[in-house]
């Protein structure tokens, strides 16, 4: 299996505060990688460094073969990114939003036309092409934002809490699409707070106070800790993290 992302000893300090502290892991092609941790654990800072919008203080890393210090422009052009705020323009229609993001990734007009049709079908927004983004439901906005992030056919997709504030049925549909993408070879890097979603990932990473304190497939993590549910895995890791901090 080929590696799409690899970091070692990645560190980010803001003044005296160490937000990310020597984090190392790698992700393979076609994986759905779940990134977990409580608020302020360093999740978002790590994602921002991987996306090339924040310069690390230390450590090494490459994303899709591009260096995270010197080749951030290549990284930004190559990856797909979707934020929890579904960054859509509400007064633009579904197609106009897609046209805009196609333009920002320099996708040619002809290619964009083909991709739009394909993606509208994938995320199930057929017949809604001319609807304004502002008038859509949370689930529809989320799927449109996903379609916008996929226009330039990124081999690696970053999703920052993509299901925050969306109803359970929409969440389930959304995860179905993610697995479809992974089956096509797209690597999915997703941060989430939902444990049922964590269960659906191929592999998980647990962050606590800037450190990676657990890494592996959900079933292995459950076995190792001797628990039955992801909820228990999360609690066990959180407690272990607290102990580690006290010993430090």
């Amino acid at each position, binding site marked *: 299996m080929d590696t799409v992302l690899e970091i070692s000893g990645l560190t980010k300090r803001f003044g005296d505060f160490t937000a990310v502290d020597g984090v190392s892991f790698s992700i393979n092609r076609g994986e759905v990688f779940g990134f977990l941790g409580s608020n302020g654990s360093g999740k978002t800072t790590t994602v921002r460094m991987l996306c090339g919008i924040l310069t690390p203080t230390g450590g090494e890393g490459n994303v899709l073969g591009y260096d995270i210090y010197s080749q951030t422009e290549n990284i930004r052009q190559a990856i797909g990114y979707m934020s929890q705020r579904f960054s859509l323009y509400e007064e*633009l229609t579904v197609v106009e939003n897609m*046209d805009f993001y196609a*333009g*920002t*990734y*320099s996708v040619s007009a002809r290619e964009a036309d083909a991709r739009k049709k394909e993606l509208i079908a994938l995320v199930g927004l057929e017949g809604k092409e001319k609807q304004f983004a502002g008038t859509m439901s949370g689930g529809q906005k989320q799927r449109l934002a996903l379609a916008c992030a996929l226009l330039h056919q990124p081999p690696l997709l970053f999703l920052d809490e993509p299901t925050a504030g969306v109803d359970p049925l929409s969440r389930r549909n959304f995860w179905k699409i993610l697995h479809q993408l992974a089956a096509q070879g797209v690597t999915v890097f997703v941060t989430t707070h939902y444990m049922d979603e964590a269960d659906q990932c191929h592999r998980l990473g647990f962050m606590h106070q800037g450190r990676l304190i657990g890494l592996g497939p959900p079933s292995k993590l459950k076995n190792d800790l001797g628990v039955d549910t992801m909820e228990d895995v999360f609690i066990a890791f959180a407690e272990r993290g607290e102990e580690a901090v006290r010993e430090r």
Partner: protein
Amino acid sequence: MNGRRLAAIVKKEFIQIKRDKASLGIIIMMPLLMMFLFGYAVTTNVDHISVAVLDQDKSAASRELIDNFRESTYFDFNYYVYSQKEISNLIDSGRVKGGFVIPANYSRDLKRSGSPQVQFVVDGSDPTVARTAMNTATILAQRQSMDIRVRHLEQRGVSLDSVPGIDFRPQVWFNPELDSIKFNIPGLIGLVLQNITVLLTAFALVRERERGTMEQLIVTPIKPRELIIGKLIPYVVIAFIDVIIVLSIGVYWFNVPVKGSMLSLMLQSLVFLLVALGLGILISTVARTQLQAMQMTVLLILPSVILSGFIFPREAMPLPIQLLGNLIPLTYFLEILRGVILKGVGLEYLWKDVVILFVIGTATLTVASLRFKKNLD
């Protein structure tokens, strides 16, 4: 600079403006409203001053005096009264701005070659009206007095040509009627252009930040300068449409023709536009919310109205205030506008103003881009 990305931003921005009623309102209604409000309300021309007259003589001579005043169109004799008390009552109530008192011995004194006293009182609470009334009344009365004397001399067989005097011929250039609208219209073009561009561009980046779309834009390959230029292009187009609206109203409605070159006027407006866009974007990088952006814009516009010489002549301001006005970009643009529109002069006289505006414009745009880059990290 990537053309495809730039085009995407420009197109998106145009669609957003087109669908935003508030922006459209500012673009279309603001120039119209400001032109007609300022065009009619901000006028320092004073005529048809309402006055009362107490004619105690009631002779052909006194009527001749009143007729001369009336024909000047500066005075409207709305009240013929019978006592001094009535005049002061009318002035107190604000129904007249002044009153004439012609004494009962007026025609008799004139016949005896005397100089009868004609009294004129003015309400000085509005100095502009009072000054015009006083000056005009003095000139009209002197002319009447002169006419009477000439008539007397001619009756005695003395020709006017044999008496020495000055033949004074004042001449007013550029605005012979001294019409204040001609002075106001060019200034209005500058003010409208400034207000609209600064306000709209101030919102441009703040809106993205407020709605969370900025977070997404940062992750895309768009470069900061592409985003700024892409956002500015639509406003340049809109600002020029507004310049044309305002100029057309000035030329065709208020009859203030452009004496200089239209091309030169447009090019010099473009330089001022650079400044206005820079200021707007600068506000956009400082303000966190649209409300803050609005407040900062108002804070910027108010002093520019007063200090630039838009309404109040800068020559009349004390030196420190004049120097403060030198810091306002609109001051220089007003020189340009009035120069080209009223005097018909070109760059040979205005190049200094153009250079200063260009420097201010480049500086603000540079600072704005640098600040914006910082915000990303």
